[in-house]
């Protein structure tokens, strides 16, 4: 039994060298496998959530993300919806976009690309205002703060 444990111990110790080599040589491969197997994504609180609608406006396009209310379990009472405008070079001075919220109401988002000031106008009680506008590498993103209404 002692001999078996010894063999297993030394064997395990030797394997660690191969583990180290595999960790670095196979990092790209294992990373992709890890990502695919787990199916994890970056939290929508950082990434803005999945894009659900793309609207082409000729020189630029608008990407509307899904509303984010994600909690650890269930949903939070407050969240946001992110709208992206890209590319920066194709944007006029002022851009506006009207989007439909889960409660069916519409919100009009207006962004001044020269000053970075954005505003959101809506009749919905679920719209709390603009969190802020973010100047991206090649465009702009605006997050509109939302309150989750009971019907949605």
């Amino acid at each position, binding site marked *: 039994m002692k001999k078996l*444990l010894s063999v297993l111990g*030394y064997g395990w110790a030797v394997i*660690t*060298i191969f583990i*180290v080599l595999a*960790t*670095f040589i196979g990092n790209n491969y294992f990373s992709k496998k890890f990502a695919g197997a787990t199916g994890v994504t970056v939290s929508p609180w950082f990434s803005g959530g999945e894009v659900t609608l793309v609207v082409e406006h000729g020189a630029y396009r608008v990407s509307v993300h899904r509303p984010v209310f994600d909690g*650890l379990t269930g949903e939070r009472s407050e969240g946001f919806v992110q709208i992206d405008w890209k590319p920066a070079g194709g944007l006029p001075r002022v851009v506006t976009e009207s989007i439909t919220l889960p409660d069916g109401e519409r919100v009009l988002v207006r962004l001044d690309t020269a000053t970075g000031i954005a505003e959101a106008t809506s009749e919905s009680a679920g719209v709390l205002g603009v969190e802020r506008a973010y100047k991206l590498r090649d465009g702009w993103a605006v997050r509109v703060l939302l309150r989750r209404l009971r019907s949605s």
Partner: protein
Amino acid sequence: MKRTLRSFLLSLPMLLLTALMLTGGSIPREPSRLAALILTYLFFNTFFFLMLHKGRTDRYRAVLFVTYSVAFVIAFVSHLVEARGSMALTEANMIEGETPFCHVVIPMTLIPAALTKTIIFPGSITGTHASIAGMFVLWIGASLALGRGFCGWACFFGGLEDGFSRLLKKPLIKGIRPSWSYLPYAVLLAVVLIAAISLSPTYCMWLCPFKTVTEYVQVTSVKIAIQTAIFLSLFLGLVIVLPILTRRRTQCSFLCPFGAFQSFTNKVNAFDIRIDPDRCVKCGLCTKSCPTFSIDEASIKKGTTRLSCMKCGKCVDTCPKGAIAYHVKGTQLSRGILPRMLFLYPAFLFMSIMAGRQIQDAIVRIIRLVTTGSMI
């Protein structure tokens, strides 16, 4: 001569492995990159040879480890300034997934990942420098191979404290209660729970002292200003001042939640440090020298180190009776070279690959600074 030849022969596999891993299969043509590669290769292998030849681990490990951390800071900050123009991280950078993922945040991501299948970190899953998946793979490999030896051999932050802790010959603050070393476990529990509830990496946002030398959120509000003051104070106190005064790694011992988390991987690791009770004369030198309070009377009685042991080898080098040694679990306690060699190979290899890239990059940037006046 015989001993030198033996040390050289034992180093030979490392010479080959580091040649393979540092070059990645191709030799750079640009003179500065070639010089950096050669210098890094010689640097690592000289110290590995010395480790084997002199039979001392920690004093040579420390030189490499400190150099690694300094090089990491140079390379990381230069890279950021090149890519973004400053060390400051904007919210736009976070939205675009441009934040390099750091191993310290791993414990905080696990509960949210399990329950929501999302990673609460503003990085990218794959395809970027320090991607989330890439760092997870590194962490898993390090945990299987080294356990908490990661903290002693691979953590790119640890070398800063390690270096500061060696500035004075004797500590000015002594008699620190070892029970303080349980604090990181409390920090771990707190940040993991708060991160899960808030779905944001609490430790990174509020406590991480190493933002001082890597990247930090651009100060645009009072809240961020307070967070900045906190991490600057923690860096000054736990990474610079206290290590100098105590000759211990105080950030690792009293704060780091990742270190606490990584301690548990020592349970599934092949290696540990054992103390031979027949040789031990209870001089207490090992207890005084351990940078993370991982040896005490109780652990010496058990003949081993505590769970927080980083396997740095300082106690092994310090013991005047040779009573402490690296050990392979499942085997008999041995004073032969085999257990130590079996540990040193994966540990040193891991460090040389992780550190090698950073050190080469830092050397290239220093050459660029000397020749052009700018590192960027």
